[in-house]
């Protein structure tokens, strides 16, 4: 029994890298450098929901069935977000980044890994209240086209509205959140004037390259899912994409530690993970 169990365990650790390789070769989505524990958890979940007997069994399916791959993509993408998530971050952003942005005639912003867009609308509201939105061009990207569609429409369930309101107030919001949306059929829809300056686009941080020079990058709670090598690669991509003195905003538990650009950025707010690219 004990023997049996350990042989099953070993197989999984052999099968997962093979599975990820197969997905990469077939569909060009690269999860090989994601955190292993995270990927394992998600794949085992899909294996049990789909009643597969093994990862290899599931590999056969993914190679032959595109629809199944799309479901899997859903499993492996990270779609946790909310309006004004971590209000203290937005508060600090208003205090510490906005004054610099106000000195620019035109501001290019890259919101990487924007998921369903709640944080994109949050940023747009903040920029509008600071009188900056009209001079901004925001690129909001994600590798998951399904979530980009949701982001484009800006329609969300009212279920979490209380939390959104609370976050907005705690983030230093100047008006009322309800000024920015209309309620219909149990959903809220954000004013499309907010997304007028936003381009939602398909971009994969793992396999795609620099596409524009920007003044500000937000990429929050994406890097936690990557191993050190991939984190390093993505931080390089950000460093390359940022203009002189550009700002980089990461998630509250993310850092530049262990990347080769650890010293290429200055702390603007170490706790809220706001950094500024050093000159040179």
């Amino acid at each position, binding site marked *: 029994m*004990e023997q049996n*169990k*350990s042989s099953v*365990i070993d197989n999984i*650790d052999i099968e997962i890298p093979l599975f990820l390789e197969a997905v990469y070769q077939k569909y060009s989505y690269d999860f090989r450098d994601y*955190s*292993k*524990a*995270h990927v*394992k*958890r998600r794949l085992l979940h899909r294996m049990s929901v789909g009643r597969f007997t093994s990862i290899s069994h599931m590999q056969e399916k993914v190679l032959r069935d595109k629809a199944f791959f799309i479901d899997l993509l859903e499993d492996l993408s*990270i779609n*946790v977000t909310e309006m004004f998530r971590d209000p203290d971050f937005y508060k600090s952003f208003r205090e510490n980044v906005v004054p610099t942005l106000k000195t620019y005639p035109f501001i290019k912003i890259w919101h990487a890994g924007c998921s369903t867009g709640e944080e994109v609308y949050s940023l747009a509201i903040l920029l509008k209240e600071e009188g900056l939105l009209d001079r901004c061009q925001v690129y909001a990207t994600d590798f998951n086209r399904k979530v980009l569609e949701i982001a484009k429409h800006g329609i969300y369930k009212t279920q979490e509205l209380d939390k959104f309101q609370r976050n907005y107030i705690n983030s230093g919001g100047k008006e009322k959140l309800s000024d920015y949306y209309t309620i219909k059929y149990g959903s809220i829809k954000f004013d499309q004037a907010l997304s007028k300056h936003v381009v939602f686009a398909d971009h994969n941080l793992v396999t795609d390259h620099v596409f524009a020079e920007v003044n500000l990058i937000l990429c929050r*709670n994406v890097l*936690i*899912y990557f*191993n*050190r090598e991939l984190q390093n690669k993505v931080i390089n991509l950000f460093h390359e994409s940022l203009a002189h003195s550009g700002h980089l905003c990461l998630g509250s*538990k*993310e*850092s530049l*530690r*262990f990347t080769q650009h650890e010293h290429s950025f200055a702390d603007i707010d170490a706790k809220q993970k706001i950094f500024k690219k050093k000159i040179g």
Partner: protein
Amino acid sequence: MNKALVIGTSFGGLEALKTIIPALPADFNIPILVVLHIGDNNNDSFIRYLNGISELNIKEAEEKDEITKGHVYFAPPNYHMMVEDDETISFSDDPKVHHSRPSIDVLFESAAWAYKNKLIGVVLTGLNQDGAYGLKTIKDYGGTTLVENPENAVASIMPKAALTESDVDFVLELDEISSKLIELSVQDE
């Protein structure tokens, strides 16, 4: 020889951890990872307090920390904490498990994957069933499992659920746990 110790607790957990952690010596042989359900509140003041009365170095875990002995790593609020195969810490903001993030199950399962049979898992007082599945996973991988006696725990649901889910190696009173851990941490197979 065991390589790590994982502890999970919720309601009543502050007091329980105050009994166990300070009773462990500075040369305690293996690193400790803790999930304490604390809602949206931060752990900072509890960690500071515990540090003041313990010989071990207590900290909130940071992403990619190398898990080393002499340290007690607390999961940060609102993130699941996981152990990678290379014995580093990773986080995820996956959906809550048993209404909890961090979840004990998520930590225990990933720790079992990484440390296999060289892991000790402990479930203490608590008000939900988080940890029961995780403790079973540790057991399935050949690890050693301990549960606080539900009869005398501040909240019995969590230890009871753990006892129902799998055959637990030791059911102990709160004040017996640290000496058992010291014994297990130095024990050869």
